[in-house]
């Protein structure tokens, strides 16, 4: 059984073709990098996979279930979690309460709120925020909020995690930290699709990379292959970053 299989996916906004006839799949346990210029359809793809948008055509099959056009909360309950490009933290909640929502409503939800609180602490610890559990989310830094969103998504116990520009706005040291964190999450057995603009980071992280341009897949392969692909260099990379 394929872990995730996408066939003929299409989405238009008015006259604009955001995604056109997209096919791809992921093996369980892999990190798939999704790159491309602005407006190439990366976030649209994540939105289609998580029910935030309904596709005009195509099918999405996740662990043998057809999840095409599924409701947002059902996607999470089926094991597909996500983070947002611009953080959407519950600002008037404590860090712990933020994570408790994922634990109380995600896959195999906790039996009651007390159990949810206990189990949510594990996710906070996983991202290194346990000492901030009682802090109001609005008092956290951007980096901490991004980690909090990650903890929240992890608390919903997903099999597939979609990260939308987790490293955007972070400095070099914080980005290193985030990369190490993503690797640890992979090692815990969670499959990921990672959208990033930091090319060096995505080349280092991904097992496989898909390059989108104007809603179409223009390359699909291991990082070493992608960064020498003349078409990819032309539309996105500008020069071969692997030579650095």
């Amino acid at each position, binding site marked *: 059984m394929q872990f995730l299989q996408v066939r003929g996916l299409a989405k238009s906004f008015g006259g604009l073709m955001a995604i056109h006839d997209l096919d791809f799949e992921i093996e369980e346990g892999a990190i798939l990098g999704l790159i491309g210029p602005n407006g190439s359809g990366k976030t649209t793809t994540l939105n289609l996979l*998580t029910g*935030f948008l309904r596709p005009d055509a195509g099918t999405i099959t996740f662990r043998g279930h057809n999840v095409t056009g599924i*409701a*947002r*909360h059902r*996607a*999470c*309950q089926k094991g597909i*979690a*996500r983070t*947002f490009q611009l953080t*959407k*933290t*519950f*600002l*008037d*909640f404590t860090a712990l*309460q933020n994570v*408790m*929502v*994922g634990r*109380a*409503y*995600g*896959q195999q*939800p906790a039996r*009651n*709120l007390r159990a*949810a609180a206990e189990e949510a602490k594990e996710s906070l610890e996983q991202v290194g925020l346990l000492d901030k559990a009682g802090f109001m989310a609005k008092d956290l830094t951007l980096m901490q909020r991004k980690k909090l*969103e990650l903890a*929240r*998504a992890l*608390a*919903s116990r997903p099999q597939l995690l979609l990260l939308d520009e987790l490293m955007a706005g972070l400095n070099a040291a914080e980005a290193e930290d985030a990369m190490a964190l993503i690797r640890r999450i992979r090692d815990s057995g969670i499959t990921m699709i990672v959208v990033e603009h930091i090319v060096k980071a995505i080349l280092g992280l991904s097992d496989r990379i898909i390059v989108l341009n104007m809603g179409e897949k223009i390359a699909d392969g291991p990082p070493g292959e992608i960064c020498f692909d003349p078409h990819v260099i032309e539309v996105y990379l500008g020069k071969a970053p692997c030579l650095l």
Partner: protein
Amino acid sequence: MTGKRIITLVLIIAVLALLAALPAVVSRDSIINMAVLVLLYVALASSWNILGGYTGQTNLGHAAFFGLGGLTTRLLWLSAGWSLFPSLLAGAGAATTLALIIGTPAFKLKGVYFAIGTLALGQVLNVTVGDMFPMITSLPVQQLVSYQLLPRYYLFVGLAVLTVGTAYVLVNSRLGLGMMAVREEEEAAESLGVSAFRHKLLALVVSAFLAGLTGGAFAFYHVGYYPQFLFSPVWTFDALMMAYIGGTGTIIGPIIGALFFVVAKELLALRLVEIHLTVFGTLFILVVLFLPGGFVQAWASIRRALVRQLGARGVRLASRRQAS
């Protein structure tokens, strides 16, 4: 934490004892009537707060549920000859049914559009009821002769306790966490497995049930009024203002707001006649602009400042003692 909980528990018991003993202490009907008004508004503002404060959906048609509950109860109790409690339940049931019917279309609207939509709903019912029931409804003579204020007062005590208790249990449950998550960030909540629609509908249904019950209690309490009066937008906006002035999204906020509102209105209306409306309007605008958390937020800020002051003094004292 436990110390705080004990204090809260003692306070709750004290308030309940005070409410139970009030008629024995004060014999003046005017005071009891004012207490009834406070309790009515505690129930109405707390029920509004479940959807408006905790779930973040500003309902400007709350009077529709209050009114429908009151209309149904009064008709069944006075005209159809039902006894009181079945009539009250039927009134609350009618309000709940309305909530279930309008919930699906209303929650297709978001933010300010939801507010406008519910405002329209309230006004449609207001005008329709005004046309259908133009005659004043008064208690018949035999009811008037045997009219007793105390059972009505205790009914409102029970109603206020039920409403506040329901709100407390709900918002401290898993469902309450989901409702507040929807208020904070609807898309994030949904991405974590919370169905925003189901949580909004649940909040609306509970809110409408309690408002309908409150309307029914009013129908039992009041001697004579035009049926349309119960659908007046005043009920919505009074409840909303009390929740905001006290502090939305808190249990104590609507209680403080109702108490403040009724007492202040009484004092202002005596001295200033119609100007009190302007005073409340201005106060409401000031609170929304400068104190979005209401009195509860103001109290929290004052307490923080006090603790800081006392803490600083404690440190100074300690260092002085050390120096000597």
